[in-house]
């Protein structure tokens, strides 16, 4: 077995951790030493992350689908192990984390009070965030998941804005509450999977779970003596609620504007840039592949038989609500930072739309592969009825129940021409497009939201207000800041040629045929994205120059972005432009993983 330190993934977790410890225990009274030490500790992580990404992008994953797998005994008594590995989706998130942390450390330089602690907390949080994305063990995942909350809680609670107590408590309790269901579900599933494997003890190994849990129907249809359907549904709920709060999916989003607004700039950058992505990552890694049967189960509310919904349709509906209402709420803000915070709800809504598309198609193909062709066709909106058998040349008197799975597949093929499940790949291709877009959007939103928060923070730090009504006409006073604000706003708005567009377009394209109405309604949200982005630009930069600020700028404190902030935002600007012009610098890694996820049931 390779040594612990030679596996780069171990380093990704432990380097920041060591850095945090060292920064925290540096001699007091030397804030500059702490600042540069923290920055220096975040750089090797970035280099390693780039190297890992490069290798994942350019190599074949092999049979397991994971790179850099590393296993060591950790907690054998309960079946937990130190198991690491990355695939194309997680490595993208690792790269994003590694990019954003040094930049947010640069921004955190601005704290004079408790400098060391802030920086140590950021490094500590980096370790936790990295851990979430690279661990292959459920116990470790849960620990990292919870650990990420702690430094953020203290950052908001100690270094936040005026309403920081309320915001930090809301953030912490809300997210924690979601996690409890996750914890129960993990326990339950670990025992079940251990049983299936015949290990005699629970197992938390994620790849094992992915193989065994979805098809598991319990012993005699029961898990722990309760109907398997219901148990699976409850486990699903635990996962769903935990990740929904984190994303956040509408209506779980109200902690976000408060936490983002009150957090210090560096905290907002990481919160919007990385923490939100953990929720979406949880959907991709766990919810969709672990619960295709629950996702696909059609359901009618009692007495409303004409409504038949399944989970993915509900998810798509919530995505639409997030996109539209998030944009409306952002538009309503007069606090610049809150406006940007609500824009995250809007942008993450698109990610959720892609997740819903992935969920429905994954469930369809999973059911088809299990031989449940009727379920699969129902989910896909292409049902078979008994009459089809005669109509399409079968023997009269047969019903669907008499047919074998293969016959049903053939029947579906005949009825739906080239657009059916087995012969044609169009539905899978749509999901691939949408899901590539969703992961790309996660990356892109990480860049542009961090940059937006950086800019809002840069202005707030100097002007000590975020009230849009008080600014105005600053364009020629602070030309560099103005240019950066317009650029970043446009990336956030989804201007083609910049990064935001690529992800959004793929999601819209991929989801349209399955959710045409929801996508069209979502376009109201995309329209209003323009409204709130322009509101931000206009209220700060346009209009008659406010003499109050001109006076302040010339005699008290320059409002122009300073060199440190410029250095921090420059990499983001470059990445936003490069990703917009050539998204394929990052897309192949994502595409390989998503294609592999969808490739399991080729007819």
């Amino acid at each position, binding site marked *: 077995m390779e040594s612990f330190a030679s596996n780069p993934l171990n380093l990704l977790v432990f380097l920041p951790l060591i850095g945090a410890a060292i920064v925290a225990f540096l001699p007091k009274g030397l804030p500059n030493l702490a600042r540069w030490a923290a920055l220096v500790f975040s750089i090797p992580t970035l280099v390693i992350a780039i190297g890992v990404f490069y290798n994942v992008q350019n190599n074949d994953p092999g049979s397991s689908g994971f790179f850099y797998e590393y296993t060591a005994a950790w907690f054998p008594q309960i079946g937990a192990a130190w198991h690491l590995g990355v695939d194309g989706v997680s490595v993208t998130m690792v790269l994003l984390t590694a990019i954003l942390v040094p930049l947010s450390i640069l921004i955190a330089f601005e704290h004079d009070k408790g400098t060391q602690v802030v920086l140590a907390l950021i490094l500590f949080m980096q370790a936790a965030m990295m851990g979430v994305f690279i661990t292959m063990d459920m116990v470790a995942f849960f620990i990292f998941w919870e650990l990420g909350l702690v430094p953020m809680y203290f950052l908001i609670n100690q270094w936040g804005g005026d309403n920081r107590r309320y915001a930090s408590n809301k953030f912490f309790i809300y997210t924690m509450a979601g996690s409890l269901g996750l914890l129960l579900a993990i326990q339950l599933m670990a025992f079940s999977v251990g049983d299936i494997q015949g290990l005699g003890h629970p197992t938390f190994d994620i790849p094992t779970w992915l193989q065994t849990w979805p098809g598991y129907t319990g012993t005699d249809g029961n898990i722990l003596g309760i109907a398997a359907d219901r148990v699976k549904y409850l486990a699903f709920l635990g996962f769903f609620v935990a990740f929904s709060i984190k994303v956040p999916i509408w209506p779980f989003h109200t902690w976000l504007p408060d936490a983002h607004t009150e957090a210090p700039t560096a905290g907002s950058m990481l919160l919007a840039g990385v923490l939100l992505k953990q929720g979406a990552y949880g959907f991709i890694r766990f919810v969709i592949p672990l619960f295709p049967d629950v996702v696909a189960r059609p359901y009618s509310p009692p007495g409303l038989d004409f409504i038949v919904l399944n989970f993915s349709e509900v998810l798509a509906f919530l995505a639409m609500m997030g996109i539209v209402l998030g944009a409306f709420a952002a538009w309503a803000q007069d606090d610049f930072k809150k406006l940007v915070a609500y824009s995250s709800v809007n942008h993450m809504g698109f990610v959720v739309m892609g997740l819903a598309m992935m969920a429905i198609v994954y469930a369809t193909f999973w059911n088809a592969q299990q031989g449940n062709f009727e379920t699969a066709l129902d989910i896909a909106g292409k049902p078979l009825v008994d009459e089809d058998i005669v109509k399409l040349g079968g023997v009269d008197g047969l019903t669907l129940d008499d047919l074998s799975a293969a016959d049903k597949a053939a029947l579906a093929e005949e009825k739906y021409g080239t657009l059916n499940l087995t012969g044609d790949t169009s539905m899978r291709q749509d999901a691939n497009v949408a899901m590539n877009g969703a992961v790309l959007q996660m990356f892109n939103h990480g860049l542009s939201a961090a940059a937006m928060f950086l800019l809002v923070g840069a202005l707030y730090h100097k002007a000590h207000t975020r009230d849009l009504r008080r600014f105005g006409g600053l364009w020629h006073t602070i*030309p560099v800041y103005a240019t950066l604000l317009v650029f970043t706003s446009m990336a956030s708005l989804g201007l083609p040629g910049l990064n935001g567009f690529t992800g959004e377009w793929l999601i819209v394209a991929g989801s349209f045929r399955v959710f045409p109405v929801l996508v069209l309604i979502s376009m109201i949200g995309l329209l209003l994205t323009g409204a709130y982005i322009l509101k931000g630009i206009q209220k700060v930069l346009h209009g008659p120059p406010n003499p109050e600020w001109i006076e302040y700028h010339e005699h008290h404190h320059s409002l122009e972005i300073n060199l440190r902030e410029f250095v921090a935002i420059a990499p983001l600007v470059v990445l936003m432009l490069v990703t917009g012009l050539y998204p394929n610098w990052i*897309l192949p890694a994502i595409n390989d993983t998503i294609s592999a996820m969808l490739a399991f049931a080729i007819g």
Partner: protein
Amino acid sequence: MDWLNANNLPWLIPVPPLVSFALIVLFVGRSKLWTSIVAVTSVFLSFIMAWSLFFHTTVTDKFGVTEAGEHIYDLHIFGSDFTWMDLGPTAFKMGVAVDPLTAVMLFMVPLAILMIFIYSVGYMRAYPVGDPHEIRFSRFLAYLSLFGGAMLTLVVADNLLLLFVGWEVMGLCSYLLIGFLIEKKSAYQAAVKAFMTTRVADVLMLVGIGYLFVETGTLNFREIMLNPEVLERLGDANLTGFLGLSAASIIGSFLVIGTVGKSAQFPLHGWLPDAMEGPTPVSAMIHAAAMVSAGVYMVIRMFPLLEAGGNPHHAEYTLPLIIMGVIGSVTALGAAVLGIAQNDIKRVLAYSTISQLGFMVAALGIGAYVAAAFHLITHAFFKALLFMSSGAVIHSMEHGEQHMIAEGKHPPHRVQPGEATPWGNTHLGLHGEAPDDAEWQPVMPDGIQLSFVAVPNDMRLMGGLINRIPVTAFAMLAGAASLAGAPLISAGFWSKDEILADGLLFLTDSSAFEGHAPWLHILVFLSLFFAAILTAFYTTRMWMMTFLGQPRSEMAKHATLKHEHHHGHDHAHDEHGHAHDEHGHVEAHAVVEHHDEHHHEEHAPAQGFDFRAWWSVYSNSFLMQAPLVVLAFFALTAGFVGIHPEFPILEWFTGGHNFFHEFVGKTLLHEPPGLPWSWLPVLASLTAFFVGAGLGYAIYGTPRDADEKDFMNVALGDPVWHALQNRLNLDNVWLRTLYMPFEWFGRVVVYRNIDKELIDEALHGIADAATAIGEAIKRFNRVVIDGVGDGIPYLIWQGGRRFRSIQSGRIQQYLLFSALMLLAVGTFFILQLF
């Protein structure tokens, strides 16, 4: 990479302006001279490359089309592509290509852009606003460069997505340029209006592009448009699409909506007249060379898809065609009606643009593919010319205004409500005053005053300018003739004639319709015919009011383009006497030069030609008028390439060919059939021109006073006239039915009612309940502990207190969790348990 390979050349065409943008923003922005040099040089490079490619493809290579005119879709076309996005097993390829339609655009666009750049340098050098960093000039040229680069990107794109990139970047540039005067409320409101109105259409177009991509797996023009199998499948409602519509109809309608926004068609036209808030070269850019043309270019480009499943030549109209035909007709006629009631010279042109774009869109609706492309090209030339001429007119009027200030007189003064202009521009009023506090309160967009006319733009105050700026006057006459459709000698005549000829197909070749009712053809022809009459009328009115008769104001008397020695207003104010002297001196100089303005170069050497002296007086005059002359040439002659092959008398020239038709027609899979020759459309065109222009001459050819009521005002009555000037209140309707309810919904319903009151209050309720239960348990503990407490040691009691506090916290969490579950999953999940 072989850079000299013609296949790679299209990549390079948009690059110089984009590089210029970067250079100006990053490096040379502080120097006006270097900014000008970089910007103009970059466009010149693009121009050279584009024209080389144009002549290479048209004269030398002819796209490899065989002599027999055979045309297949994998035919040699200049271009190349590369993988841009990996998507599952397939990939999206980004590329460029030059086919005949692109080639024609590559002739027109770079030429127009180059002229606009040269003109802009002259115009903006003397733009009467200052700024603390002197970056306004370079900002302008930087935006313009980006605009030009985006337009060229759009033109050379070989797929819809790259086209959309150029399309949206232009939208951004137009936003930045319209709102160029950042201090001016009406300017930034117009900018937001333009951006948001076009975005309404763009988000739907985005869906259309996405749907097209998943339906075909490609967005490449040739792979879709020249592939009959794909078109047939998309056009068949039984195979693809939903709601009884074929995929082609749905996609096509979304794309057409995109054009409705971008090309300012009814009902999304309201932003374009307001876009006049931008400096004049912007108007030329937006209205001629670039943005609005892009909208029409896109539908021309996608035409085979729009007609898939139908055939307009047999009166089988598809949904996108019907949308285009109806909206184009309504727009062409409606905007022409509004055009007659405008007193702002730029606004007349704005409405004429909307109207002319309506001509093209309507033409495409009835399948007049070539005619629409033809009118797009000719219109670009004469509209760029007209806008830049109007800019020269306005500029000369501003000069007259400054002259009056220098002489101590008070120029006409109109204060635009809500306006605050700290740089002290007199005709905008309120200079030197601090903006009032209301400016920082949230306000409704009342900055745009529909009937407000800035003084230098007001045609009622002009008159007699032909004596002051003769070159501009004659150049503008050429443009006006083309817009009005002056027979034979103007480009606009030939292209408009071809559209009308297509519309008249129901009379000239009714057998083609095979028994279907050609109702769309009839509708389009009738509205375009009346629109053409009105066009000739208001064009004549505009030119006459501006240039003929006696000057109707002091400003018009002193209007000139020469010398800009005191363009800074503060300068003019602070050193009043000095400016007066200097002005008097130069004015005398100008009077000497006045009568032989065209011959100054011959005069100059006799006096020992001093280039610096000449340049200091004539630089703006030259930079602004030379492009006009170039464009005037094309505005008159560009139409000769598209004459009907059987047009009498001119056969010696055409040689039996309609060059434009044969060339552009090759873009399509099947070259569209030429129209049968008939006198009817020619008669229609002639009638339209002579009726309209004749009426205009009869009414506005007579001298009038500045305060005199407009003849049409008298004829139509005040209510109608004011309604026309206020654009029939349509903008207000949008404001009240869409903007305000949306704003209210966001602020009150979504943010306050839903997020704050419903969701957050529910969370707080849960938290309060949890706290209350925790408190109750704490009390219970205290009672229990107190009850047995006498004998219990102090330390245990303290430990219990600690434990208690932990416990109550946890209970809060558990309760919060369970209640959250209820809230979270709602009825859906809960009910599913049963």
